[in-house]
């Protein structure tokens, strides 16, 4: 059923992360992304893994749900790791495996494996952190409000920030409505014997016509009604508009930003010496 699709990934709750200002969360996601990209040493990665685990615990979202965020990207992670494994240069003495397939000559070196693990870990951390800090804990409407406020300086150079934000929140607002409507029309046509799941591609596409036409019609009708309703309430764009919910940054917001900014320092964490791994001449840089 379409009803099972969760929009975005918002997971309602009342944890510290849920209660932070959306602006804080957007900024912190960026800071954490930077931190992940700056991390070089194994120790730095260790620190970030711990941080991510801590964030997941704080968010009070079941770990299984959080890890679901990785599912759509597993293929990308695997491909990235694969290429890093074979195409990272390194010392001849570090060759672990050497294949000869036709004219190809792929070589796996220690550097390649290290780099593959790092890349995979990097992507996993990125996704987990941003989902926990931002997408799982911020409702889509809060998110657009946050983006609007963060970008509001751009309005000075005539970027229609408010219009975009309004369009975004309207679109977000109507996605569940549209899904519900689609569900209803599909059920109705199924009651009249529509068959969406058998036959070849052309038949299946054709079977969708009885769903798409009513859906399109109702979207237009809805857009008309909405425009009229907005005009009746004298909507004239963003100028001079006040808000019902005024976002306020509190001490905990500033503290959280500071906390995230601290992790940029992982850049300077020392590498665990390569001798500890018993390999000489290892190069961790990318």
């Amino acid at each position, binding site marked *: 059923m379409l009803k*099972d699709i969760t929009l975005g990934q918002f997971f309602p709750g009342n944890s510290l992360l849920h209660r932070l200002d959306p602006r804080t969360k957007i900024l912190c996601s960026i800071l954490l992304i930077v931190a992940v990209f700056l991390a070089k040493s194994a120790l730095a990665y260790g620190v970030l893994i711990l941080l991510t685990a801590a964030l997941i615990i704080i968010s009070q979202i079941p770990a299984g749900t959080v890890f679901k965020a990785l599912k759509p990207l597993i293929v990308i992670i695997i491909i990235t790791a694969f290429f890093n494994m074979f195409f990272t240069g390194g010392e001849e003495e570090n060759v672990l495996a050497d294949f000869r397939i036709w004219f190809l000559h792929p070589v796996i070196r220690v550097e390649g494996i290290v780099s593959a693990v790092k890349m995979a870990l990097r992507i996993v951390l990125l996704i987990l952190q941003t989902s926990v800090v931002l997408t799982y804990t911020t409702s889509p409407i809060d998110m657009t409000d946050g983006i609007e406020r963060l970008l509001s300086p751009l309005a000075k150079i005539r970027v229609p920030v408010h219009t975009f934000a309004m369009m975004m929140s309207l679109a977000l607002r109507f996605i569940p409505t549209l899904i519900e409507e689609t569900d209803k029309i599909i059920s109705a046509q199924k009651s009249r014997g529509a068959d969406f799941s058998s036959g070849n591609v052309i038949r299946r596409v054709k079977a969708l016509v009885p769903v798409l036409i009513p859906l399109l019609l109702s979207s237009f009708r809805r857009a008309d009604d909405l425009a009229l309703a907005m005009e009746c309430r004298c909507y004239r764009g963003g100028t001079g508009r006040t808000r019902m919910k005024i976002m306020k940054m509190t001490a905990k917001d500033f503290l959280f930003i500071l906390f995230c900014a601290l992790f940029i320092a992982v850049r300077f964490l020392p590498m665990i010496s390569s001798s500890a791994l018993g390999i000489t001449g290892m190069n961790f840089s990318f």
Partner: protein
Amino acid sequence: MSEYAIELKGVSYTYGKGTPFMKLAVDHVDLNIRRGIITGIIGHTGSGKSTLLQMMNGLLRPQEGTVLLDGKDVWEKPGKIREIAFRVGLVFQYPEYQLFEETVRKDVSYGPKNMGLSDAEIERRVKEALAFVGIGEELYDASPFDLSGGQKRRVAIAGVIAMEPEVLILDEPAAGLDPRGRAEIFGNIVNYKEKTGRTVIIVSHSMDDMARYAEETAVLCGGRAVMMDETKKVFSAGRETLEKLGLNVPQITLLMEKLAQMGLPVSKDVFTVEEAKRELLPLLKGGQSDA
């Protein structure tokens, strides 16, 4: 042939199981729909009416319990569930929003076509179905989108009738129509039932409509079936009981109650305007002769 057209046995359905949005919509409902009469299902918004209907025609599979159609479990062969939709015709709320074809004729024949009937048979059924809802031949080739609201609704209902289902279920068939439109739709439905002798289920939250058209009535509240009996008996449960279930007594009953309070010798168990007329007219005539 079983005495009941549809039997629900301990049927439950929960939406979004295992998510924070989990909602128990139907909770162990037992319900027997008698063959060949109009049964009303009544309950206020969120009482689980729509979910219940979708389980009756195989759109939703009950998570607990069984749905019997003519004594047989509808989910006996899950691969053939589409055929259940043909046997139990479900008309959704605001069905006019599902119209999609270029002409009335084509739209009504969508269902029969999906059943794989011959062209001649489809033509016969389309004509019959449109006659039941009072749409004349002059409109057969009109675009359904050019019709009036009430006409669109009737064409959409014809689209389900044309499948000649054993049981016809209508979810709020008169919602959003003016009094005349309501009367027409219900008139069509009663006429359909009389002529075909098939089973009809009407879902509504209007007690007035139930009192007038339903022979038996089931009351749903919070996903449970709290009452199921002859309409008269359900309504005699008394105003307090009904109001506790979120239902309003028909307006004519309220009027009769007021009259009784004012000392007129009238019965309080009057649920339709017709009955009230029968009660009040003699009184009125008697009153005149007194004066």
